[in-house]
């Protein structure tokens, strides 16, 4: 339950590095910054250890032995469609390979039947519980239930901390820091994707208020299967699924690259049911110790998924399993704003995934790697920088309302439903066309106008910020999708199938009241011809 937000009960702290977000990327960032000798504070809007999409899942990592890396990279370059680079992929693979064995004191890596230690896949709850302990043992201060509400900059224009709310303790907090890492996750617009309800794009909003650019936001239309009405978006078992319509007629939905599109088309026609009778008996018995949460919905609703059919759905994954996020540059995941770094799903993953979601394994490797790169970079910058002692300026848009006249009181829940009505439906976001994107952008512009002309109630300042963040994020996603007038990777437009050489480029977006976009052509033409786009 929420405690009051008041600027009179301030917790005032100083750090070299402030990390915003305590999921996979944030915890790795904190560990890396502390390793550099920095004083580090990590704030999480929820609880570092359970917040975010890793803690509730079972992340595999992009885990490839040195001898296999060239082939692994070549394979991924094939689906990146020109927008990833070999060097970043090699660096992420190397960082992941070197990092995981180092946390053996904090995560009990199991051995397989041959006695070989299994590093690649970890259980989410135990992984993040272990990372929390590692972060604390590294000397980092963790502030749970302390959502950041705005970034602060100094007289020189560099980011110098943040301010937020102590939603359980009451009052607000301000942390003055030499550098800030945004590790607040992606945004799935409160779909029921497991663990995603803390990932509402807050970091994108805060960074954009500071002038940061985003990139790859058009690649934000990944969907994942779950039993209808549940959050259990763990997909492994569905590889054995058979699918049926309401009349129990088999549907032509099979595993492989076309799975999501086939399922989505069927769902647009009516309910789709699944049966898991092809799961072998020995695996059924083992599933609770492989994925302990997988069977909870079935067991608790009295469904035998191996015999009975059950309805399935697709949950939008937005920029979580999608690619887009804050544009990061150089070896340290620096954003386009001085003093501000980004990591994990908060950062664009184009460097290793390009135009196609890399899936969970690449995501985890990216969070682990970019987290450490950003944490190290932030620590080194903070060391060079004389910490500003002067006045700090809050950057929240809420400080700059459209008008100071009495403003209408806003209903967050209604605004969120309006945003979801544009970004969740399969026929608007997965299957894209220019006319629909224009209509959605108009609807989202209206939401934005309402947000800027109205005022939110004061009892939950976080929900107000989340609503604004989702409105802004939706507009960036669709603006980029509208501007990329071709089909590439996961961004497929029925009005513009196939690649256009003009879009051998990254699309940058940004701005809040005046959103903008820019096409940055790739530095060099690709040496190899690009593979044909996969038809949707």
């Amino acid at each position, binding site marked *: *339950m*929420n405690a009051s937000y008041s600027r009179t009960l301030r917790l005032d702290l100083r750090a070299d590095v402030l990390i915003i977000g305590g999921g996979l990327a944030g915890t790795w960032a904190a560990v890396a910054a502390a390793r550099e000798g920095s004083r580090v504070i990590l704030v999480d*809007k*929820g*609880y570092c*250890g*359970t*917040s*975010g999409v890793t*803690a*509730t899942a*079972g992340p*595999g990592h992009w885990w490839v032995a040195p001898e296999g890396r060239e082939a692994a990279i070549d394979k991924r370059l094939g689906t990146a469609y020109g927008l990833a680079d070999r060097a970043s992929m090699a660096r992420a693979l190397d960082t992941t390979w070197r990092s995981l064995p180092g946390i053996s004191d904090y995560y*009990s890596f*199991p051995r*397989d039947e041959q006695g070989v230690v*299994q590093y*690649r*896949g*970890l*259980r989410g*709850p*135990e992984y993040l519980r272990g990372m929390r302990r590692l972060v604390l043992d590294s000397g980092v201060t963790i502030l*749970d*239930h302390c959502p950041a509400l705005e970034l602060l900059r100094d007289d020189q224009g560099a980011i110098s901390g943040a301010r937020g709310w102590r*939603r*359980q303790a009451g009052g607000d907090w301000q942390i003055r820091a030499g550098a800030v890492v945004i590790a607040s996750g992606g945004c799935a617009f409160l779909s*029921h994707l*497991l*663990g*995603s*309800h*803390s990932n509402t794009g807050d970091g994108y909003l805060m960074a954009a208020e500071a002038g940061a650019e985003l990139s790859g936001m058009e690649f934000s239309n990944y969907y994942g299967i779950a039993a209808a*009405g*549940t*959050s*259990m978006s763990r997909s*492994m078992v569905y*590889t*054995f699924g058979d699918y049926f319509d309401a009349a129990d007629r088999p549907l032509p939905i*099979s*595993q492989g690259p076309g799975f999501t599109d086939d399922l989505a088309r069927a769902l647009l026609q009516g309910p789709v049911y699944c049966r898991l009778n*092809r799961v*072998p008996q020995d*695996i059924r018995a*083992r599933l*609770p*110790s*492989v*994925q*302990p*949460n997988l069977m*909870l*919905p079935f*067991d*608790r*609703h009295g469904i035998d998924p191996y015999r009975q059919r059950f309805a399935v759905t697709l949950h939008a994954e937005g920029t979580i399993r999608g690619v887009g996020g804050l544009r990061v540059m150089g070896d340290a995941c620096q954003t386009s704003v001085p003093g501000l770094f980004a990591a994990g799903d908060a950062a664009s993953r184009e460097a290793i995934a390009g135009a196609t979601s890399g899936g969970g394994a690449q995501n985890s490797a990216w969070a682990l790697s970019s987290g450490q790169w950003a944490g190290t970079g932030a620590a080194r910058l903070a060391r060079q920088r004389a910490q500003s002692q002067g006045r700090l300026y809050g950057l929240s848009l809420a400080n700059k309302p459209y008008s100071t006249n009495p403003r209408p009181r806003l209903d967050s829940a209604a605004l969120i439903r309006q945003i979801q009505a544009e970004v969740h439906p399969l026929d608007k976001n997965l299957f894209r066309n220019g006319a629909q994107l224009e209509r959605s952008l108009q609807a989202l512009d209206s939401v934005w106008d309402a947000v800027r002309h109205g005022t939110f109630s004061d009892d939950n300042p976080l929900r107000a910020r989340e609503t604004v963040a989702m409105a802004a994020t939706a507009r960036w996603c669709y603006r980029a999708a509208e501007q990329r007038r071709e089909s590439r990777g996961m961004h497929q437009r029925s009005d513009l199938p196939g690649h256009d050489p003009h879009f051998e480029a990254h699309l940058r977006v940004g701005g809040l009241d005046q959103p903008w976009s820019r096409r940055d052509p790739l530095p060099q033409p690709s040496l190899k011809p690009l593979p044909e786009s996969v038809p949707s």
Partner: protein
Amino acid sequence: MIELIYSDLCNGCNQCVTVCPTNVLSAGTDGVPVIGEQSACQTCFMCELYCAQDALYVDPDCEQPRQLNPRLIRNSGLLGQYRRDSGWDEWANDPRHANEHWRMDGIFALARAGK
């Protein structure tokens, strides 16, 4: 969504209040946590996992609250299922609940081969 807190099982540690990532629960005046903003629950089951007393129950319906019979749920053996299957706390050294997450790769391969 989170539906039930069994006050006679709860030891008042308030760990669930701390670990809930969406701040659904709060410390009650009698020591037993209370469900505050139920609609903010994301049905992630983390509170159950961290409750060593198995005093909480999350219904898998993530869209709307359900009317449940607390006695029936209690007798169903479902309380503590997630924590036990995860091999936490007193289940840590029980070989029946060892971490076999690494088998995922093999299971995927088997599914593909079965096509």
